[in-house]
């Protein structure tokens, strides 16, 4: 928690800015959403760390996917992710987005979310407790510090692959591709 370290603020304001003002847009997918209210209210107060919930993707830079992802919800997740401004970080809650969790053999859920959108960090557990969420946030800070939280750069470079995967899973998408340039866009 090097928030009060003025030298760091002057050295790398963008990293520090990102770290200590993570505005989260949480998409009420799956059962993880019930964990968010205690995180942002009195009991575990996420605002201490600068994490506040915001209403629209445009204003946010942290995307929490809190639970299993059904095929229909994937469409909304991709749309929201693409509408978020550039330095954006995504955190997957629970085992379902990692590998499908207990719905591993269901015909209707997405197994590996990171085939469709890049994920910076995962929180294991079949619905992690608020403390785990805070651990994830601090972990994300270190990633940002080390410059390893570059999921959005990966999305930009490999957009073609991602787009292909998305179209394989969802059939025709009715919004135009986000990046026309970008590698792997064969």
């Amino acid at each position, binding site marked *: 928690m090097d928030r009060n370290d003025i030298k760091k603020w002057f050295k790398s304001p963008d990293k520090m800015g990102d770290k200590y003002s993570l505005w989260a847009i949480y998409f009420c997918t799956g059962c993880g959403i019930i964990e968010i209210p205690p995180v942002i209210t009195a009991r575990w107060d996420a605002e201490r760390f600068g994490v506040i919930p915001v209403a629209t993707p*445009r204003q946010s830079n942290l995307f929490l996917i809190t639970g299993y992802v059904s095929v229909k919800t994937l469409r*909304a*997740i991709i*749309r929201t992710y693409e*509408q978020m401004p550039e330095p954006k970080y995504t955190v997957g809650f629970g085992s379902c987005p990692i590998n499908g969790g207990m719905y591993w053999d269901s015909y209707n859920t997405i197994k590996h979310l990171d085939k469709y959108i890049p994920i910076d960090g995962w929180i294991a557990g079949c619905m992690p407790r608020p403390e785990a969420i805070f651990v994830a946030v601090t972990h994300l800070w270190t990633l940002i510090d080390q410059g390893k939280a570059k999921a959005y750069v990966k999305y930009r470079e490999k957009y073609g692959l991602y787009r292909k995967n998305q179209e394989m899973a969802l059939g025709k998408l009715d919004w135009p591709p986000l990046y026309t340039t970008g590698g792997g866009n064969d």
Partner: protein
Amino acid sequence: MNLAQLILISLCGAFLTYLLGKASSRIRDTFAVFISLLLIIPLFCLYGKNEEITYYSFLGLPLILKITPLSWLFAIAVQTITSLSVIFSLSYMKGKERLDFYYLMLLLVNTGMLGIVLSADLISFYIFWEIMSWSTFLLISYNRGPALHAGMKYIVMSIIGSASMIIGILSLYVNCGSLDFVQIASFIPRTSSGYTLFILILFCITFGIKNAIAPFHTWLPDAHSEAPSPFSAVLSGVLIKMGTYGFILFMYTIAGLNIIINIGGGSFHYLISILAAITIIFPTFIAVLQDDAKRLLAWSSIAQVGYIILGIAIGTGLGFVGGVFHFFNHAAFKALLFLSVGAVEYRTGTRDLNSLGGLIKKMPITFFCALIGVFGLIGMPLTNGFVSKWLIYKALILGEHPFLAFIALFGTWGTIIYSYKLIHNIFLGQLPEKFSNVRKAPVTMRIPVIFLSLVVVVFGILPGIPLKIIDTISASFGFQPQDIQIWGIASETGVLNMVNIFAAIFAALIFVWLLFLMGRKKINIAQDDSYAAGAYVPKDKYNYTVDFYKPLSGMIKPYLRDFVDDFYLWLADVIRTFSDKTRKIYCGDLGYYISYIVLFLAVLIVLKMGLKIW
């Protein structure tokens, strides 16, 4: 180039356009534009000179034309607005039928207005007033359908107006012997104040009807929304201001300042300012409820004219200068708004505020000029509307009329409400599917719109230019001259320095723009790439324009029924039923007819013999 030749040229120009129209429409169009532009030049160089010419005598009465600073200002406004609307109607009226008739009438209205403004005696004033009235009638009912009803409502009210005017003129002629303004002005102090009040009331009825003051405003909304757009720009820009010219003429040139102030114990001009205040409030909030762009603008014209009359009727120098300056500004930005709405109607075919939207992408210039027009209407700083409203408010507040000032200020917020609705429903929001291939407004439509928006901005930043002229007018009426600089008004009770404000705003804009550039480079995205809670924006179903101020209109709609209009319609029905009854007298039965004759004879004899009346 004396004044009589001026009027003659514009009159023959009108008829010549009609004849040329028979030859070929191209020649007629160019000739109409040429004649209306040509007339501006002599008018322009008449500034300052006070020519006077008796051009004709009618039944022993000399008809005189004279140019005064006031009439010069009005003449310039009239001529520019008309020529702009002629340029605008070149392309707007292209496909329509009977265009010779349209241009003839438009230029006739222009001649009528010029004649009114330049005439120096009441008879020529009346003659040009009538020419203006019935040519306006023919133009209002130009595009058939409901326009006929609007035209009929207009002509009946203007006939009543001109009837009361002719009675006033003739009683003046009988009592004062001559109809020249100068003689009347010298005659008024000598007569009893009761008679002057009677004359003033008669003329105020006429000018009130033409000016659409509170009780007589009912014809304006129909006339404006039915008339062709270029003409409704002239109609609301300058034509209803002929009433204002009449007010100023009678309250200041003829009656003179000190008479007006203490006539009827000072209540007369106070009554007019209350009437003007009422005219500000109700039409503004009725305009908020309108769904048709031009009807909204029509109601807003009534409200803005209320400001002008309020400025004039307060009776202080500042108020007068503010009122006349507001006339000039209102002519500019209201014509601008009507023309831009006309351009939108020309391109999209509709002016219904519920179905338009998103045209900013397709018609950027029209949007930008309409935006400046709306800023002028609201009175944002840096536009000329602000300066004139500032003057009026200062006159009101320092003139101990806090409640009138409150009504005027509150009217401004009403203006903001309906003018933002106008801009939002036409230009902002999602572009509906059916307007996806709308093209830009044609060039002949953009020239007048751009010129007017320049006028609005330039006179907003450097108000000194027009204020200097208006100050000479107010000085000629006996107000003490204001201390006017190029940048605004400097007086001990409060300085308005527009250049100062402009510099501050411009600096702030530059500073914020730099702050804006400091941030990361922005990415432009399409209009339909907007937040829709994860879904893709559905076509045509993602627009909030229908009944834009639903919560507000729910509350104020019941109170804003137009009672005056219903009263007039009821009156018309009464006359119609009464006339049906009188027609029953001629019932076609011979026996009745003969009995009428004999009865009439008997009654006469009985009256004479029995009661010895004679």
